[in-house]
């Protein structure tokens, strides 16, 4: 198991795109580059803050952290434009925040307050923010994939040039509905970008132990959907790959499948301790992947260009911590839901 994932880590790093090439091609300015880094820091510290909140009993139920996978949210969603629709799983905080949701309201949702993005009804696993194109986080593994077909259908039907981005986990690909959906997406030529967050594990089950064909991207071949493998620890690799295909998808709708190789540093859920994780991965493996922390990979590029030094780095880090704390305070001080809200939104008027 460990050996197989090690191969993947190396494979991922060798996929690393030349950042300069992407930066030049997209003419990303210095401010923009620093902004990307700031958002990534914000997402990281937001998750750390959620973890603390969970441990101090402010968060109920399940909490699934995104730490380690940040570049997959930013690299894809930075390409989105208003009107694009994004679907996620229960590991959805980053997607929502990167799309522009107010982190205070995201945290309030995670605390179950009526000031939350889903008014306290959904919680961590079910963030929704229509205004920012976030069509939801879903708790049933693979449950969001059929929805992508409908969103893609509507975007095409309405003659928009928008796309649907559907995030899925490697484990989710084993749900039968995944296959029905990809077939239909290609059959009806729908503008859907499937982003496989291939973090190597579904809870404690590695890709190797649950997929007969571990080249997950190649499954898209069965449905005539073009696909590509990308290094998910490298923002520019992800962004570059998405930029290359999205323009065409907007003009001539057709699905695309990105197999993004990444890794989650925290347990599957915030409740999973070291003993649980030891059943399926080693500390050495986690440490190896931490060498390729998306924040390190990105900051190295910025340092190389002379845009970032230690001083600025700690300034930006402090700012992200501030934001996360502010979100915590906002959520903590928000009032609890009123009983009268219980029966609201069961049916539309």
């Amino acid at each position, binding site marked *: 198991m460990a050996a197989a994932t090690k191969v993947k880590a190396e494979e991922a790093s060798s996929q690393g795109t030349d950042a300069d090439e992407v930066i030049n091609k997209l003419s990303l300015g210095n401010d923009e580059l620093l902004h990307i880094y700031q958002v990534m820091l914000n997402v990281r510290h937001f998750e750390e803050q959620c973890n603390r909140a969970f441990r101090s009993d402010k968060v*109920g139920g399940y909490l699934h952290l995104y730490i380690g996978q940040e570049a997959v949210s930013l690299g894809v969603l930075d390409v989105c434009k208003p009107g694009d629709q994004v679907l996620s799983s229960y590991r959805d905080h980053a997607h929502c925040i990167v799309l522009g949701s107010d982190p205070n309201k995201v945290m309030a949702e995670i605390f179950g*307050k009526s000031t939350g993005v889903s008014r*306290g009804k*959904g919680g961590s696993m079910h963030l929704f923010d229509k205004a920012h194109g976030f069509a939801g986080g879903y*708790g049933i593994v693979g449950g969001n994939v059929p929805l992508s077909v409908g969103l893609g259908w509507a975007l095409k039907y309405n003659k928009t040039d928008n796309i649907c981005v559907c995030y899925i986990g490697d484990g989710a690909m084993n749900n039968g509905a995944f296959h029905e959906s990809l077939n239909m997406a290609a059959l009806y030529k729908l503008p859907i970008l499937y982003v496989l967050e291939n973090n190597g594990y579904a809870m404690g089950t590695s890709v190797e132990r649950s997929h007969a064909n571990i080249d997950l991207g190649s499954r898209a071949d069965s449905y005539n959907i073009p696909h590509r493998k990308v290094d998910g620890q490298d923002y520019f690799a992800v962004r570059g790959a998405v930029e290359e295909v999205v323009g065409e998808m907007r003009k001539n709708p057709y699905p695309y499948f990105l197999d993004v190789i990444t890794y989650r540093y925290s347990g599957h859920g915030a409740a999973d301790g*070291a003993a649980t994780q030891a059943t399926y991965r080693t500390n050495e493996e986690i440490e190896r992947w931490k060498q390729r922390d998306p924040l390190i990979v990105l900051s190295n590029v910025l340092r190389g260009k002379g845009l970032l030094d230690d001083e600025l780095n700690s300034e930006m880090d402090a700012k992200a911590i501030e934001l996360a704390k502010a979100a915590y305070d906002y959520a903590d001080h928000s009032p609890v839901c009123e009983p009268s809200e219980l029966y609201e939104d069961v049916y539309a008027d």
Partner: protein
Amino acid sequence: MAEVIMPKMGDSMEVGKLLSWRKQNGEQVKSGDIIAEIETDKSNVEIEAEEDGVLQTSVEAGAEVPVGATIATIGGASVATNGTAKSQSSSNGHSAAAVAIPAHDVVAPKPAAVSAAPTKDWGPTVNVKYSHAIRMALEEELNADPSVFLLGEEIGQYQGTFKITEGFLQTYGPDRIVDTPISEAGMVGLTVGAAMLGLRPVLEFMTFNFALVAWDQIINHAAKILYMSGGQFSVPCVLRGPGGVGTQLSAQHSQDLIHWYANTPGLKVVAPATPADAKGLLKAAIRDNNPVIFMEHAKLYGTKGDVPESTDFVIPIGVAEVKRSGKDVTIVTYSRGVVLSLAAAEELAKEGIDVEVIDLRSLQPFDIDTVIKSIQKTHRAVVVQEQWEAYGVAAEFSAQIMEKAFDYLDAPVARVAGAFVPMPYAKALEDIATPHEGDIIAAVKKTLERSI
């Protein structure tokens, strides 16, 4: 000064055991230091210091501490040491819950009340958790019958999501303890197909919410193959796992859909409330020649009770049990509803109201005779369920009672059920969406107000 509290590590956890202190009382600790190790239903967890300061422990190693209670403080050396436990009130009626809701005011099951079962000739017993009783049944049947095998997500190498199958893979090997992909329809198909050829598969759903992905295989295949084949193919299998409502798991992970299965001919449906029933009924389910839906409850996994050690301890499916006898009102319920009802009965007893609590244990087939016999004595009935009221278990039993005991009733049958909404995440809303002891007490009193 920071309080260190017993963290809640998962939905089923209500108490945690403090295994060891890694830092000593009075020791200076730094933020990030591991200060203690705790044991939970799922795994052992290390607790980190969140601040720099002096550690003041307030519980001993080995203690069982409720979630949310303070186990230590970190601060200046001169600060008071006795951390105060957060409120752990164990009962909350609707109105109370709606007003002030502490973050984790979990309605704690009262295991003591459950184990106060009528004395039985069970032979030697062990006092174990509900989850362990399930494990006992699985182990005994795996040992007794080579055609039994288990399959499910994370049951093997991961040692089980709720540790029920811990060590099984090592003992029985990968042919009998099968780790599956997240493919519920395929898993149920495997189960049903293997059962058609005489094996006795026991499938674990990580939770019953995920059975919905496999509903075609369950309802349209498992339940009907014996009948459609004119009796040629039986389907002896068990589909088991936790169902019912959880704590802040939100709409897709918190619901009691047991009535859907009980509404389908061809399926047997079982829902134990106590460790002993869990063992005896699961053994019966595995030996049964039909597909059996065996719905556990994650909130019961940690409750303890005496369980017979005998490998011959089997409880027949379809037989209810009077868990508390009384003369004033009959409560009919199952699964966690039994725990809530027994707690409510204790409260009512203080006011001189003597409640009989019937644990249905099986919902299909169901034991209406025990219910009717009770109503002939009490003349009043309350049915308690976690699920939505409309078309639910209580609806069925109200009709059954009306048909078979109409003349004995002194008041209309009352129902206690969940609010007709998808389960909200917010604690404040969840509390009023789910039935509590207080609701049962109110319903019992309501039926007593009526007379003819």
